[in-house]
């Protein structure tokens, strides 16, 4: 039952070609373009070393928030969720299938991006794997929660716009392409507490072999818990 649902999730994902652009195309394009040009400030790091952690956060955000959120929003509006609600599948197995599908895609993205990064000369210091995994799990939970809050309430078309809009905001205010230190003071404080910044800063620390910033980790954990709780309690299965 679970396996069949997981296959469905992945099939639907794979069938939407535009998803591929969002999930792999845009991150790779940004990574290649900005590592080969010197138009962005990079906080004193080599272009690729600054970009890589940010682009990985962007990839996590595109899968866990935008892709999952848009797909779930449409499933809700087509009545797919309501229909599945009359079968023995159950919420737990449905959510588990979505979690595993999301992880499968993230692993594929990370492998592809790391490969491109290494070709472009990315040279991370020794990586603390448990810290990396923890940061990725927290980031994924947080973005999935945010995506599902919107998917569970908004009409499918508005949800689509909202997910893409938030993606852009979190990209620009996320220390992903532009270091937060370059932002005007009036919004830099905001950017620093946004989950995209927290995740890219954590990853930057982990790849730079710095000490793990517990405060950033705790803030991201708060975001993740809050977003998931709100999603669970606000989610409507059908309009």
């Amino acid at each position, binding site marked *: *039952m679970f*396996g*069949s*649902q997981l*296959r*469905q999730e992945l*099939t*639907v994902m794979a*069938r*939407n070609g535009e998803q591929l652009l969002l999930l792999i195309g845009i991150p790779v394009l940004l990574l290649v373009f900005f590592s080969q040009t010197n138009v962005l400030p990079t906080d004193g790091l080599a272009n690729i070393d600054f970009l890589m952690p940010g682009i990985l956060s962007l990839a996590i955000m595109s899968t866990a928030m935008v892709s999952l959120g848009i797909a779930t929003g*449409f*499933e809700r509006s*087509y*009545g*797919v969720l*309501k*229909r*599945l*609600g*009359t*079968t*023995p*599948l*159950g919420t737990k197995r449905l959510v588990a299938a979505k979690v595993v599908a999301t992880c499968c895609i993230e692993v594929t993205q990370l492998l592809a991006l790391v490969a491109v990064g290494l070709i472009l000369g990315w040279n991370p210091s020794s990586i603390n794997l448990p810290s990396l995994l923890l940061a990725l799990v927290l980031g994924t939970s947080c973005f999935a929660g945010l995506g599902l809050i919107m998917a569970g309430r908004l009409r499918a078309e508005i949800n689509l716009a909202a997910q893409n809009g938030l993606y852009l905001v979190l990209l620009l205010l996320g220390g992903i392409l532009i270091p937060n230190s370059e932002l005007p003071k009036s919004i830099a404080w905001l950017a620093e507490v946004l989950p995209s910044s927290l995740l890219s800063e954590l990853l930057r620390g982990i790849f730079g072999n710095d000490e793990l910033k517990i405060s950033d980790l705790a803030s991201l954990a708060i975001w993740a818990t809050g977003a998931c709780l709100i999603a669970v309690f606000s989610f409507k299965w*059908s309009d």
Partner: protein
Amino acid sequence: MSAKSCELRTVMVMNNSDPSRQDALSVRNLVVDYGDLRAVNDVSFDAKAGEVTVVIGPNGAGKTSTMEVCSGVRSASSGTVTALGLDPKKNRLELNSQIGVMLQDGGVYPGSRVLEITEHYCNLYDNRTTAKDLLTAVDLNGRQKSTWRKLSGGEKQRLSLALALAAKPKIAFLDEPTSGVDIFGRDLIRGIVRQLAEDGCAVILATHELDEAQRVADHVLMFEHGTLIANASLSELRDSHRGASQSLEDIFRSLSGKSQPSRRL
């Protein structure tokens, strides 16, 4: 099926099994509110295994809301529903494994292919129903590779029915199964509905097409403005309205407008 053979069947069921199970579905004092709007107002009825219970009434009369509460998709504002001895909310998954549901909108992703989605639904239930058998039953074997998006209205309804059959249901909730379906499709769907009942399933079928209702009903529930204005077997209903021509439409007209409060015939 005549009313008499229905009664016989009921007696046999009573003798052979737990008497509390003779009614596959039992609804008492059901109320469904949407904000200020009362969609279903104090409705009570039973539906028996082996019978087709047709829920009729105009659009917005409360048919779909009632069906959705009974199948666990929606919560009741008050009242109780017992389906196969279970509470549709509390024992949801246990009940879901024994019921088949056809929603008004298909509930299928437009890009899903016919065979793929049917196989998926077969995998959701613990029985040996195969996708090929289901698609043969609804005459869609030639459309296995088509996407839902490309199916005609009638084909969508037939696929939707096939997905409901994947459960080998003891109760089938079919909401407007023949709307948008051509004459051959209607015959096919009616045949399946009758067969389900013959096999002992309690079929609850909502429609606003009274001609359709007349062709398949054993038992009739008439809704108007959220209340039940008639709850009787088709033959009882006809007997009690001998003055009128015996069409459901005329019977409905003669009962309509006297809907407060709900009454049993």
